[in-house]
């Protein structure tokens, strides 16, 4: 790698690390795993730096790399995860009791990995349904269904949060 490419990469990391790390935290729900995922993403980005730098949006390239890394790791570990149906029954989010403060990250981590990825793209990155579908290689119907399910799961938590009601 040439010196100027190393400097370009370093600049890119400084400009994007916060956003990617936060997305990683939403995906993993764990600070340590988020650090690992962010680091793994940048290792891959560096390995393909020329391709990344030449992309229309290097950040979007890195974000896609992160999602692929996250989802591939989750697929490898899928056998150790609880079925979604069980999670839906046991979820503390369904409680809705405002006295029972449920952390947003913990609530997110109870969602299936693909639902989390949809949440990150739709509500953290503010991507459209169509763009999210392309990014995750699924249909728009599937994106809407997963987003709806995630919102339904998180609604009690959002209702108890001290947020200003929007009227538009």
């Amino acid at each position, binding site marked *: 790698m040439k010196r100027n490419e*190393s400097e370009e990469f370093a600049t890119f990391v400084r400009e994007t690390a916060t956003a*990617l790390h936060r997305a990683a935290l939403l995906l993993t*729900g764990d600070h340590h795993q988020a650090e690992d995922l962010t680091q793994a993403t940048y*290792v891959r980005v560096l390995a393909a730096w020329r391709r990344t730098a030449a992309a229309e949006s290097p950040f979007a390239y890195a974000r896609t790399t992160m999602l692929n890394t996250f989802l591939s790791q989750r697929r490898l*570990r899928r056998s*150790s995860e609880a079925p979604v149906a069980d999670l839906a029954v046991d979820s503390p989010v369904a409680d809705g009791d405002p006295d029972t*403060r449920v952390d947003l*990250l913990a609530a997110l981590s109870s969602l299936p990995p693909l639902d989390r990825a949809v*949440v990150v793209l739709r509500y953290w990155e503010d991507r459209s349904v169509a763009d999210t579908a392309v990014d995750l290689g699924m249909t728009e119907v599937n994106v809407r269904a997963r987003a709806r399910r995630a919102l339904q799961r998180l609604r009690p938590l959002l209702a108890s949060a001290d947020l200003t009601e929007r009227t538009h």
Partner: protein
Amino acid sequence: MTTHTDETRLREALHDRLRDERPDPERIIRVATATHARRLRRSRVGGTLVAAACVGAVAVGVPLVADRAGQVPDATEHADALPSATAPLTRAEQEQAIVDLIEEVAPGTPYVISPRRPRFILNHPAVTIISDALSRDQRRAISAGLPEGWGADYMKPNTREPLAHEIPVTVPEGWTCEWYLLDDKASCQAVDGGVASLVIRPAADHGGWLDDSDKGANPSTYVTEVHRGIFISVQTGLGTTDAEIQDLGAGLEWID
């Protein structure tokens, strides 16, 4: 049925929750650069090993790898640093081989090994070698002589002391932990494969961890009481339930 308000609330909640989360970009750059360089070296060394096999070489050790790679001209003095590769080494033998290698390449140089396995970055085992006295050539010699498939990171020692110089707690039956005291951390695994992490923290942070739902005040984290100026946070990992984390945390016993 979901509404536009739900979506807006979720957007605001996500951004509000993560507002204070900031990574260390300089560390990311350092580790990414080192990992990338190591992979390049490994791919070059791998090519050299194939060439060596073609000419009938049997023993695969530091001098063969290093000399043919053209990286370390004086590496012949480390001829017996690694056992022959004709028989597979156990993990313990590999770790011992790395210690022997460092001692051969840099005799008398102070160093610490942290046998850490990054969960996402590599599919191969890796060691972190912490020293401020290894020269560039010595690092190259060590990297070239690692057992096949291993990688190494090189770090300078922390300027601060670790919070604990010895393992501070025992873990309940069914859990095994690997401690990285220089990082104030341990990585733990249950017999069923679930993982968790322990982090040693200063007593001054205890109140914040008990009160903050982003930190310890949530079901997936357990926070011990303060003991001799430190406490430990137990955080959930893949394949571990909140109840298991609570049991793990409650089962920790301080070692005096």
